[in-house]
């Protein structure tokens, strides 16, 4: 099962952008068991830890993506916005997988599957023995749905104030982190449901 899903910024490799990697959206499906912390503010410390874990994953994904872009010689202009009428070829977008050892940063060993689309990174944090092939296609599906429904390619749009759209999509296509074997027809049916429930 998926432990977390996150969307974060991706900067071009060797770019002049000296800002930080920002997590734009994250959802942890069912937290790891909190340590028995009887000190005051234990809950806040717990939340801080979770946020930092997600940020650590985002940073690793960004560096993996940058390294892959450099290695495959794709020009960094790929990561800038492109005109919104061209469909993004998600099958050719940079993607990859890497492992996280136990304790670094999650308690259990986990695997991260990631996908880079223009200047956004999408990542799924999986348990160590999940169906990786299904996770990859689910991630591509989520990216496509989010790009389509949130029209993220249009200039000036942002997903920061539309997290409910992301939640709506996740609740149908990755409910509580459950990877689903959805064929095209099921996907279409779910998309129709979502469009009906959510005003654009």
């Amino acid at each position, binding site marked *: 099962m998926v432990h977390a899903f996150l969307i974060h910024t991706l900067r071009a490799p060797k770019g002049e952008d000296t800002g930080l990697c920002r997590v*734009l959206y994250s959802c942890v499906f069912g937290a790891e068991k909190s340590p028995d912390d009887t000190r005051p503010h234990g809950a806040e410390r717990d939340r801080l830890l979770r946020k930092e874990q997600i940020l650590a994953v985002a940073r690793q994904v960004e560096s993996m993506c940058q390294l892959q872009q450099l290695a495959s010689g794709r020009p960094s202009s790929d990561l800038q916005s492109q005109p919104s009428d061209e469909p993004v070829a998600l099958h050719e977008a940079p993607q990859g997988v*890497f492992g996280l050892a136990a304790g670094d940063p999650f308690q259990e060993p986990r695997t991260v599957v990631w996908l880079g689309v223009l200047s956004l990174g999408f990542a799924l944090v999986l348990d160590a023995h999940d169906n990786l092939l299904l996770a990859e296609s689910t991630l591509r599906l989520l990216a496509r749905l989010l790009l389509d429904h949130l029209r993220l390619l249009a200039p000036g749009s942002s997903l920061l104030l539309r997290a409910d759209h992301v939640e709506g999509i996740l609740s149908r296509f990755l409910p509580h982190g459950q990877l689903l074997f959805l064929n095209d027809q099921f996907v279409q049916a779910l998309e129709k449901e979502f469009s009906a429930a959510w005003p654009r």
Partner: protein
Amino acid sequence: MFSAGAESLLHQAREIQDEELQKFCSRVSKLLQEDLGPATVDALQRLFLIVSATKYARRLEKTCVDLLQATLSLSTCSEQIQVLCAAILRETSPTDTLTLSCDHTQNPHQLSLVASVLLAQGDRREEVRSVGQRVFTVLESRQPEGPSLRPLLPVLSKTMGLAPGILQEDQASLLSKRLVDWLRYARVQQGALHSGGFFSTPRARQPGPITEVDGAVASDFFTVLSMGQHFTEDQWLNVQAFSMLQAWLLLSSPEGAGTPDAEDRSELEGSTLSVLSAASAGRQLLPQERLRKVAFEYCQRLIEQSNRRALRKGDSDLQKACLVEAVRVLDTVCRQDPSFLYRSLSCLKALHGQLGTDPGSERALLPLAQFFLNHGAAAAVDAEAIYQHLFSRLPSERFHSPMLAFEVARFCRDNLALFDPHLLGLLKLSFPNLFKFLAWNSPPLTAEFVALLPALVDASTAVEMLHSLLDLPCLTAALDLQLRSSQMPSERPLWDTSLRTPGCLEAFRDPQFQLLFQHLLRTKASGSTERLMPLYQLLQPMASCARVAQCAQAVPTLLQAFFSAVTQVADGALTNQLALLILERSNALYQVPQYEAHVHRVLSSWFLALCKQKPSLVLELARELLELVGSVSSIHSRAGMFICVVWAIGEYLSVACDRRCTVELINKFFEALEALLFEVTQSRPLASTPRCPPQVITVLMTTLTKLASRSQDLIPRVSLFLSKMRTLGQSPATSSVHSEEDAEAIRTRATELRNLLKMPSVAQFVLSPSAEVCQPRYHCDTNTALPLALRTVTRFVEREAGFLPG
């Protein structure tokens, strides 16, 4: 995209102050009580951003939190608002002030929303258990016309994943029964089209049959690969049931003895398989057993359906994912009930032949190999062909797929304990092929291979492996050339198209270098080593390629892992070979920027470690070491390495380390080092010679002193030399070579060493201590402590110096 506007929005959200936030909370509370329209949505979206934008806790007003909790369960408001309320509460979790509970929630959709908040609390108050139990209650009390159960299964799956023991046995049986229904008995007609309302035609279209991925009418029961326009509730549950099947089978298998399944298992062990299936057919199956039977049939059907040619790309991708899952589920089923093994084998036998024809289908090879690894012995099936495919063909053909590379490395890592000696041997011999994954995809795979290397290291292939590791960037370049020369022009290029190296491509195709390239790209350990030096020059233009540079950065880490592993299994002869290899290869590396410097650092530290492990190493390699210290060029080409070697000579060339050490040998080394030191300090330096690092000079002086302390005839020579060193940097010839600080340091060291040599027995004690001196006891005892001895010597010598001129 992430524009400046978005950045400033994020900044605002993070910087908002507490009282402003409380004001906003009151506004939100007001909106939630009055109106649940677009203004409320907007406010909730902003509140979500504020709460989620920072990693530090945000305290929300109590009334606001209570209203959010209440609105969450309100069935009259839109899904959008419910979802926002749940998301806000989830983002502030874990929190001690939550009063939300699922104890009275009946509606599955609401329960799902409430669960998403409760499960984020980190199980501080047993929320996982209460959610799980509640889901079960709703599941049991299901009414046929009630709301859809679809939201429930994922919640159940998640709670069981978080806390496996929450379900009692009867509840587990009930779930298994339901899963059997949903998996096997979902209807095979499409759902009815919803009528369009008052003005629609009264005659509704007859729903058509469910079809397969290739358009044919469904030949058997409904599965995830069945197509239709509209789906019914039980068909949806079929999809969800299969999605959670593997996890449920693993979680629900009984662990201890005394349960029915465990008894069956102990009966079945050791008996023939076909007899078993007949024996168990007679009695009624338990729910768990029925589930396994249905799971088996479902997987069998999926494997058959995966053979069909899908009309849509998305479905084709799904077929491959289903194939992987089907094999995994069969593996689990057979582990829990060996009576399925015979039928599974006949199902999977044909599968191997079909893999690899369609790109992407070879991913199923891994669960297949896992299956045979788990059950091959019991079934007496020779899975050799599969392992050969996995280790010999797959890496050479598909090294460029990062997902496959990762999965193969993980497979090897996770299953080492299950590999029998023959398979382990095959794995060890296939290391050159496996390194192709590593060479092409270094950033994600380095950690995996560092964990895998100890298993791959073998005394018989260690030398070859060290060569391969040092040549890994070269392998990356060669793989790139292989792709360029073999790929069809119509396919999307997998190599770096920004780099054009026609010269290298020609060299790759040149028959003159065929042998070397073939050796580099070999699939099995050959037992011999080829010197690839001609290739380094040929491939020089590719050294600036990003992929090659990334590989070069990974090599030092891999070398560390390699040496840590090999020193555990190396005997004396192998240690010598490795040390020689270090010396030889430190001068023969592919010139990627900074590669040589980093590799030298690792190699020199491990050379010293090898010497420490086997002190007689220096003596046994005396000839090669003499050659190394015989020429000044060693200093210039590999200073770091040189320093370590000289230091090792000083430390380990003594009778204490090896009884065979003779005075002649010490004298020979002495003369070579003395000549070298003379050349770098006294002779007039040419403008073209690079500056000799001061560490080289000091280590040479120290080593000469150490050798002199062991062969005391040499002391006068060294003392004379050291006194000459005291004027270093003060003569016009040598003053420009070293900076004042360096020259000062050298002079100080020379003086210290010379003083030490004035008391030869002390010098011996200090410079060639016996093993006991390294015990702490030696230094705690104030009568024998080293600092005390040195202080005494210094005072003595200074007093003496006062009586001597100069």
